[in-house]
């Protein structure tokens, strides 16, 4: 099969959950003998390259200060147009599209080019500024061969909201890449934050608020901030007002000295970071899934996350981590939530020190293993490719 993933962002320029999911699925499918292509965009000159056996086509991006002032989504529309033109020129068997892939002509591709498409809902709340945007989104949902969400609860919710069957296709985690490496130093436990430092919803600031307390009770702990700095052009001021700009909320100089700001580093360095850490923290809100959580668990590292949304559905056992009730923006500024987060992190550090903990985490993560999810995705693609014009089903 020839499978194509159009998405405006990809490695190494954006490293969030969606890009990781595209990478894992495309690599798995290529390994299974399929021809896989990723259509994406990058700053600077456009070019074509290969990520292993996966062909990656980078289109150029439009960026202009005045555009970002008035209508930042123009960049997405531009990508949608260039990617759609490429899709019309080439022949593929399956199109795996996600929220904000912006291939609004996907129903036409399905009809005229017999290209079935899977519409994968990877965010919880889709934001569209205009009536036209909302209309095209509804059309994409209604005319898709299949619609998928990341978790069972959210699939149920979206199915009820849009009146279409929604299946579950979670992001996979490659258990061969994310695994314990024996380099964890629990006498100096690392508390890892790998979510986007530029996105306020990821809760980095809440973790900084909790850090004084965590460090007071566990002075040997080190906080490692290893996330990216936001997507260029979006949340322009978020970088200054989120985690990166809020280091001053840590009042204790010793606690502040125990913060390592690493940034996103290289793509290949992330598994090692997880494996070396005692606990991974994702105190986010509105999280559709929380791939950070499964990656950490696969690496044998307990997690602390919100009890709501995707992470709450993943971490349902105290053997693999702890949860904190975080539901809305104000919770990320709440001192009592910060105290609860500190308690949870200290619990998770203690959990990491217990024998057998890493194995339990890893076993838990195997529910989302690449083999399992990849096989499920492959079956979905095969079904769609077999009858591209057939009506959808939730199965």
């Amino acid at each position, binding site marked *: 099969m020839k499978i194509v993933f159009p998405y405006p962002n990809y490695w*190494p320029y954006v490293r969030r959950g969606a890009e990781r999911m595209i990478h894992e699925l495309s690599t798995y499918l290529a390994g299974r003998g399929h021809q896989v292509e990723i259509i994406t965009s*990058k700053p600077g000159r*456009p070019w074509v390259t*290969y990520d292993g056996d996966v062909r990656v086509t980078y289109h150029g991006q439009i960026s202009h200060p*005045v555009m970002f002032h008035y209508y930042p989504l123009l960049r997405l529309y531009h990508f949608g147009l260039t990617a759609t033109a490429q899709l019309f020129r080439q022949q593929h068997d399956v199109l795996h599209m996600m929220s904000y892939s912006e291939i609004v002509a996907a129903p036409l591709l399905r009809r005229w080019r017999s290209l079935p498409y899977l519409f994968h809902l990877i965010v919880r709340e889709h934001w569209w500024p205009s009536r036209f945007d909302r209309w095209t989104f509804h059309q994409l949902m209604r005319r898709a061969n299949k619609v998928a969400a990341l978790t069972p609860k959210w699939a149920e919710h979206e199915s009820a909201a849009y009146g279409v069957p929604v299946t579950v296709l979670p992001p996979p985690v490659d258990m061969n890449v994310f695994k314990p490496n024996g380099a964890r130093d629990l006498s100096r436990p690392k508390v890892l934050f790998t979510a986007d430092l530029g996105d306020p919803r990821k809760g980095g600031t809440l973790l900084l608020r909790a850090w004084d307390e965590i460090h007071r009770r566990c002075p040997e702990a080190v906080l490692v901030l290893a996330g990216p700095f936001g997507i260029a052009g979006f949340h322009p001021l978020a970088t200054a007002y989120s985690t990166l700009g809020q280091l001053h909320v840590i009042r204790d100089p010793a606690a502040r000295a125990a913060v390592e700001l690493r940034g996103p580093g290289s793509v290949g360095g992330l598994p090692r970071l997880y494996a070396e850490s005692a606990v991974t923290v994702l105190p986010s809100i509105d999280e559709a899934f929380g791939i950070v959580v499964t990656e950490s668990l696969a690496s044998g590292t307990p997690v602390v996350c919100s009890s709501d949304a995707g992470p709450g559905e993943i971490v349902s056992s105290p053997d693999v981590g702890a949860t904190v009730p975080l539901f809305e923006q104000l919770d990320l500024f709440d001192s009592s939530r910060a105290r609860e987060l500190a308690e949870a992190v200290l619990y998770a550090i203690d959990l990491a020190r217990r024998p057998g903990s890493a194995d339990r985490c890893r076993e838990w993560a195997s529910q989302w293993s690449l083999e399992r999810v990849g096989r499920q995705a492959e079956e979905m693609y095969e079904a769609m490719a077999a009858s591209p014009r057939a009506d959808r089903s939730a199965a």
Partner: protein
Amino acid sequence: MSTLVAEPPTVASGPAQVIDARVRPTREIVEAVLDRLPVTDRVYHHLDYSKPLVVELVERIRRAQRPPARVLLVGPDSLLAETLVSLGYAVDVWHFRQGHLTDEMLARVRADVTPERLAEGDLPPAEEPYELVAVPLVIESVPGSPATFLRALQRLVAPGGTLLVATTNVARLDLRVMSVLGRSTRSAYPSFHVSLSFPPLPRLRYYHREELLDLARQAGWRIRESAYVTAHAACSTIDPHPPLEYTLGQVAQGVMRVWPGARQAVLLELSPRLDGGDDGVGDTGYPSVSAVLAVRRGGEALREALAQLVQQDYPGDRYEVLVLLDGRRGGDEQIIRAIADQTNVPVRTIVADPPEGPAARNAAMRAATGAICAHTDDGCRIPNGWVRSIGAAFDETTSMLTGPVIEIRGSHPDFMVLPGTRLGWPEHELYPVFNVAYRRGLALAAGGFDESAVDGRARLPFAWDAELASRLRQLGWNGRYVKDMFLYRRYPPPARLAWIKEEWQLAAELPGVVRRMPELRPQLVTAGPFLATRTLFFDLLAIGVGAAAARRRLRWLWLGAPWLIQYVKYLDAWPPRQWRISARILAALAGRHLVWLGGLLAGSVRARRLAL
């Protein structure tokens, strides 16, 4: 639709490869590196924003040192470091905790530093010195004076190496505009800002270029280049700006393109200063001084000058006098012996023929024992305190001194000599050999006076003695004009008609001097290409006379009025018996101006540098 560039199969996040940079412009190389950097898009755009400074730095690094030179980068951004690595340089990095680097560059971090540590001069040790050290946008974050830091960097740079310092220009356009509008410039000194390019250190103080040059010289650096450069784009393409703000930013960039002094950064290219060794010359104590007296007239003039030198109020054990004489006049040696017998100051004679000139002066400096060599001749009257002033005026950055020269009454009048060539009270840069002092070790290490300048010539060319000072300045040393270091000089009138040849030669040599020694331009060429308003007015007179003759209209002669008016003060209109004398003076002046004009034109053609 964008055009896709097909590439061979590669992994996007692969390591940087060495670029064949022999023919590619620096900007293209930097852009190619940025295009392949495995960084997130926000980092990409931050690096793109500050790319102009990286291009400037890489350009100078490529010019100063060839790969695989060892390069130390203090607080770089990823683009600068990756570009140098891709060009084949051996790059080490000193990293600030606030900075962001790619993993490949983090692996090259040799030390973590802080601005406070740099301010104290507490620099991490290096296994061996670097051929090049670059310090971009760090100086402005160093608490207190950066002099200690700059001085400490000396030990990191190999002999013949280069130090590049880039720092924010205090006279940059936005700061000027804010100051003119009376607005606070506080926002230009952020204690916190977000940068994924150069480290976001708190900005404490910005420097003016001249201030920075002084600091660099004090710290023992030789200035090879100082330039105003554009440090960043008008705005990052990912930051939202309304149209007016965006347009103003672009206009400001355009203004900076044509007005260098308003650009965002100052970039200094420095190299270690010529080392004269530890000669004990400093701010305190009595450095040893050798006074060198050239005998040009002999007889009474020698007696007077030598007596004044040995009577100087300076410790006898720290002072000596060397007399340069040609040995043809026996009377001079007797005079010297007689004076030497009456003083405890050591007096030595050195025979040199001729006794004045670069060879003789170099011989005297080689024979001298003092750390400082003070030069004069027997045409001068040397006041008591001259040597003391010299001994006190040297500091650790000064290699030469000069001072005022006061005409002795009865000298040939200064308006009869080529403008700019007669010295007085005003500050000057000519460092005449009859009133100058050098650090001896440095002067000799720099090659001494240029002996090739007089090869085959019957007379000493104009400003032959200023060349050594110019060379020392280029090697990173300061000169000082010390008012206390004055002396008196007699300028005898030239022999009848001999002035024609002398003034012609002087005028013909001047354009060449101006071309060779740019620092003398402000003194020698004061009004555009003209030596002085005097020569400008004479040129007007010449045009007026020529035009009147050609057009047969006398009114063109009014062009000569300014020239006449400026000399009126030397002419007496009353009583009538003075008319003849005034007419002779006027004729003499006109004659000299004609000779100067001829000499300057001939010299300008020869030197390809117009001076009128």
